[in-house]
């Protein structure tokens, strides 16, 4: 009960633009150096200190950016879908702001996952690109991110734009499921997932640790980027309200 009460209080407080702005103001000076440091530690560890792979040699080191980017792009889209649903049901302003803040970095991460995957594919599979289920559905995810951004840009009224983008995100969530399970459903050339939530991961600790650290780092960078963009959007939307006028 206590947990539920705390959660709902947070939900309402963070849903209030003013509280969110203050909260992020306190959080960001800590969060962005931590995010940068975590990413740097994970990547340097993965690039320079992790052992090479018995089959792929050193080309496997690309996964230290590829896997976090792909994971972040998927997670970002799910977050956008959840925000879209919240907004459809409760018309919460913060959810609209969040969708607009998530989309750009989500698109960047989807692009990184595709580019690094292609570069890795050449020495490993023998081709930069195959039109198989996993790769194609990831490309669609990039297009969906770009579609959400295009829709927000095209609609002049920010509230209407946010709600429309929310609906599109909810519809596009179906693609996340396809990306996730494409490897199992359609014997894709892409291997199965290395990191499993249940059961053991198929990777020894000296490789897994830097991978998990870079993942955390990229996710934190995502959070920082979202907070910065959300703050900018909030300030602009609320520029006529008392709390913003007080602030400047």
């Amino acid at each position, binding site marked *: 009960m206590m947990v539920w009460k705390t959660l709902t209080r947070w939900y309402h407080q963070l849903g209030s633009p003013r509280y969110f702005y203050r909260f992020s103001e306190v959080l960001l000076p800590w969060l962005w150096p931590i995010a940068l440091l975590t990413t740097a530690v994970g990547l340097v560890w993965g690039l320079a200190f992790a052992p090479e792979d018995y089959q792929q040699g050193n080309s496997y080191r690309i996964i230290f950016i590829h896997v976090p980017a792909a994971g972040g792009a998927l997670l970002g889209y799910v977050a956008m879908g959840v925000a879209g649903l919240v907004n459809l049901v409760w018309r919460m302003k913060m959810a609209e702001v969040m969708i607009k803040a998530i989309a750009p970095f989500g698109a960047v991460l989807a692009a990184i996952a595709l580019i690094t995957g292609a570069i890795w594919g050449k020495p490993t599979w023998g081709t930069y690109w195959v039109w198989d289920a996993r790769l194609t559905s990831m490309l669609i995810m990039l297009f969906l991110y770009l579609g959400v951004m295009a829709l927000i840009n095209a609609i002049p009224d920010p509230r209407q734009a946010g709600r429309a983008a929310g609906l599109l995100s909810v519809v596009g969530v179906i693609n996340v499921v396809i990306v996730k399970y494409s490897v199992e459903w359609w*014997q894709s050339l892409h*291997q199965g997932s290395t990191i499993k939530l249940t059961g053991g991961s198929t990777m*020894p600790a000296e490789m897994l640790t830097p991978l998990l650290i870079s993942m955390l780092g990229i996710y934190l960078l995502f959070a920082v980027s979202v907070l910065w963009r959300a703050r900018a959007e909030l300030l602009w939307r609320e520029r006529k309200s008392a709390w913003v006028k007080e602030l400047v």
Partner: protein
Amino acid sequence: MNPLRKQRLLIIVGVLAGLGIAVGLVLYSLSQNINLFYTPQQIVSGEAPEGAQMRVGGLVVDGSVRRDKDGLGVLFDLTDGVGTFTVRYEGILPDLFREGQGIVANGTLVRQDYFEAEEVLAKHDELYMPPEVQQALEKAGHPGAKPEQAEKDGY
């Protein structure tokens, strides 16, 4: 019941029925081989139609790779532990192509035991290991974890 409620009920029943049938159809289609991917077992048992464009996957049999004296032609056998058939390919093989490795090939099944590949791609598994660990495992008599892996991947 007032008409508004009745309509809402009808909508919900309709949506659930539509989605239920859709799920049934998806389950049926998942039980079919809808992506033209065949394992050696399926090819040997004659499930794969001859002369058609398809994808095959399996492990390269140890000691089966033979290269043409002239040109780039390569012949090798592909297996999944149950069936085995021969693949011919002309071109540059990927780095990771080696005996015992899983591969995916695009091409045409000429006969029930002979496949002409247009493209050979190395399928990498989700198993990572430092080379020393792999060597130690091999010394101890485990050739990696590959046979299990092959089964898991459906090869």
